[in-house]
């Protein structure tokens, strides 16, 4: 079993907690971040709820105030700062070229794009606001993080939909294994904005009142769409040598990566990559987000890979909603925390099984984590899937 990279730092900004110390108790006890949507009103939409990060102050995490920050970048700064601090990683002139950054976001700064284009439509392109322009790129948040911390080494940015966050973490682990960097700040972020909410609603992706009240119900028979969320999750990945020489705590190791069109193939690739059998896996952190088809497809894939063995399965999106580029990065952080605490978080609202998603290891209650290996899944509706295997027995 080859170790690709060590996880030495963790950070999260989520609707149920900012920082692992707040986040884990809420996650493991099944606290839901789903509530009535705040901040903007759109008439004519059936979906009312969201999983928002409320009362968040980015200035806690910044060395100095910024003249302008998109919310996407604000959310990223919180989790990134926590991850660097918890890894005790100082970026300086001596190591700046050997520290990397790998980020993911699906829609990123969509709200600023809309604000910018609103001004263009209103006043004409000659009066477009130059201060907003640099904040409208899909890699804006990545650049702002690099500048804030002085990270000059390896750099990547993914916008591969719901897989963006875990894609960023997986590529960072590969980059460490290939020797491209000694340590990489990696993660995903997504802010909830009015345009994103309206887009998701228009496509019928969001949960609505049905047989039961609108909520996130992964794998449950009554699921009818996802709750849009926002979050960020970052980790510091580091070579074993670098972590050892710095003497920092190693929370877990990335030991397997699978990427494919189709989650079953991605999970099998991750297991083969790590050289471990399905029986060695203690829990699966599912991508399931309460969508009819995606949840069913993932359940079938888990059954195909793990057989009828009741491998514990959890869907943290039951509490956090679907936060696109952030969700799989937050699931990765959740998995590391689960390994630390030897506990699988509950899948809240899971009450009624569905013939399409029969998973014996699924529970609305926390479950003990019996084995030190967990698999983290992410599925994009477009077909791209990523599966990452973590091991905490180092």
């Amino acid at each position, binding site marked *: 079993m080859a170790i690709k990279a060590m996880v030495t730092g963790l950070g999260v900004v989520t609707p149920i907690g900012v920082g692992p110390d707040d986040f884990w108790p809420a996650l493991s006890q099944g606290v839901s971040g789903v509530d009535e949507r705040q901040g903007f009103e759109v008439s004519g939409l059936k979906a009312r709820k969201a999983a928002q990060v409320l009362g968040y102050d980015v200035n806690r995490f910044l060395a100095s105030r910024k003249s302008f920050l998109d919310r996407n970048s604000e959310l990223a700064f919180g989790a990134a700062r926590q991850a660097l601090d918890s890894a005790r990683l100082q970026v300086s002139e001596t190591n700046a070229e050997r520290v990397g950054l790998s980020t993911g976001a699906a829609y990123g700064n969509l709200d600023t794009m*809309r604000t910018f284009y609103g001004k263009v439509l209103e006043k004409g392109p000659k009066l477009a606001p130059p201060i907003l322009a640099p904040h409208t790129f899909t890699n804006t948040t990545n650049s702002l993080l690099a500048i804030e911390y002085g990270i000059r080494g390896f750099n990547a940015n993914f916008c591969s939909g719901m897989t963006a966050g875990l894609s960023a973490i997986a590529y960072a682990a590969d980059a460490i294994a290939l020797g491209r960097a000694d340590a990489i700040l990696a993660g995903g972020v997504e802010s909830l904005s009015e345009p994103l909410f309206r887009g998701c609603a228009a496509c019928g992706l969001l949960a609505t009142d049905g047989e039961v009240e609108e909520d996130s119900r992964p794998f449950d028979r009554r699921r009818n769409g996802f709750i849009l969320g926002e979050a960020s999750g970052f980790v510091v990945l580091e070579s074993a040598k670098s972590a050892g020489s710095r003497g920092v705590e190693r929370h877990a190791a990335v030991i397997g990566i699978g990427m494919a069109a189709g989650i079953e193939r991605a999970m099998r690739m991750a297991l083969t990559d790590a050289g471990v059998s399905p029986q060695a896996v203690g829990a699966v952190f599912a991508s399931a987000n309460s969508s009819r088809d995606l949840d069913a497809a993932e359940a079938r894939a888990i059954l195909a890979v793990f057989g009828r063995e009741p491998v514990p399965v959890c869907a943290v999106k039951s509490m956090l909603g679907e936060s696109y580029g952030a969700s799989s990065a937050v699931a990765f952080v959740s998995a590391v925390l689960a390994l630390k605490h030897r506990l699988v978080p509950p899948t809240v609202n899971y009450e009624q099984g569905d013939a399409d998603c029969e998973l014996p290891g699924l529970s609305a209650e926390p479950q003990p984590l019996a084995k030190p290996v967990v698999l983290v899944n992410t599925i994009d509706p477009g077909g791209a899937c990523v599966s990452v295997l973590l091991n905490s027995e180092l």
Partner: protein
Amino acid sequence: MTNRRVVVTGLGVVSCVGTGVPDFWRAVCEGRSGIRPLTRFDTSDFRFTYGGEAQGFQADAGGPDLATQFMLTAAEEAVGGLEVGELNPSRAGVALATNFGAADACEKFLAQTVSVKSVEPGVFQALGMENDTDAVRRALSAVGGFEGPCTLLSLACASGNSAIGYALDAIRLGRADVMLAGGYDAISRYVWSLLSAFGIIVSDKEKPNLVRPFDKNRKGTIFSEGAGALLLEELGHAQQRGARIYAEVLGHAMNNNAHHMTHADPGGRGTALVMRMAAQDAGVSPDEIDHINSHATGTPVGDPLEVAAIKSFLGPRASRVPVNAIKSTIGHLMGAAGAAEAVASVMSIVDGIIPPTANYETPDPACDLDCVPNVARQQRVNVVLSNSAGIGGANSAVIFRRFG
């Protein structure tokens, strides 16, 4: 950590000087600028009205977003040499990169969300960049399926190289044997309004309206559009199926200046570093690099910084290494620039021709490299490095070597 070698076995391109590698390459070698007055949308309220719209490209009005169509066209050309049944679908993947993705959908979506009008589902659907990867994957299924790793990156105008680098790593790491790598972007009113806000575009008053990299009188860049695609393949896999091998992909690197969102990076430090990182990844010394396809966009500030970076990277040899800037002909293809320039870099190895930096008139002491002024040069190229850079300080570089 890995001995798997990766080669280029297919190329494809859409650009303002032609669609398809033969037309593109001929125009680039002749130094014919594809910059024209824009026709796609009404430019009467814009400050800058010249650009490089794709030529020789038949848009399908009922098809996907124009940007996606560019990528599909380039991808189909790049896989043209594949026979049905030669691929194991689970061992073939797609890595794309873009700055703006589906530009038309983006513009429509933003306009719809600015107003209180309802959002069209198809427009939001097309906005998701990952859907372009899926569209390419499905379009290529005719040759046997690309069911392995598929992803999409974005590093502003440094995007194109990032897809190539990612694909290279995926094959090196054994995740795939074949990867389609590509970059794409299209001009739209939204994209144009955004790019116009940076003060880096040649004024409409300049006649003729041209990009003049490295020239003392360079006045800025001009944006264009298109796509570039490279089929990357593990060497043994390519040899086994008897594929034509254009070149070997030796290495890549991506980084960020970590300096400022829009200000120049002092001394071109980040660009020098990305070239060093790429050379290290490629296992070559800077002394072995005999041609650089530069990023140079024709801006007064940017070009000398890249020149300084190249001097720092190559050392005293810098003045003897041909460093061209084909944005003088093809304009700045945004997220597709790196991919299109990679196609040109590979063709330089194949044909032994280094295309010129066109429109070059007046030497600038701050850009005193051999920029291959105006006339293509016949010269054997063994190892070429292609540079890209983007807003926010992103840099990327790839290195190709003659094979065999």
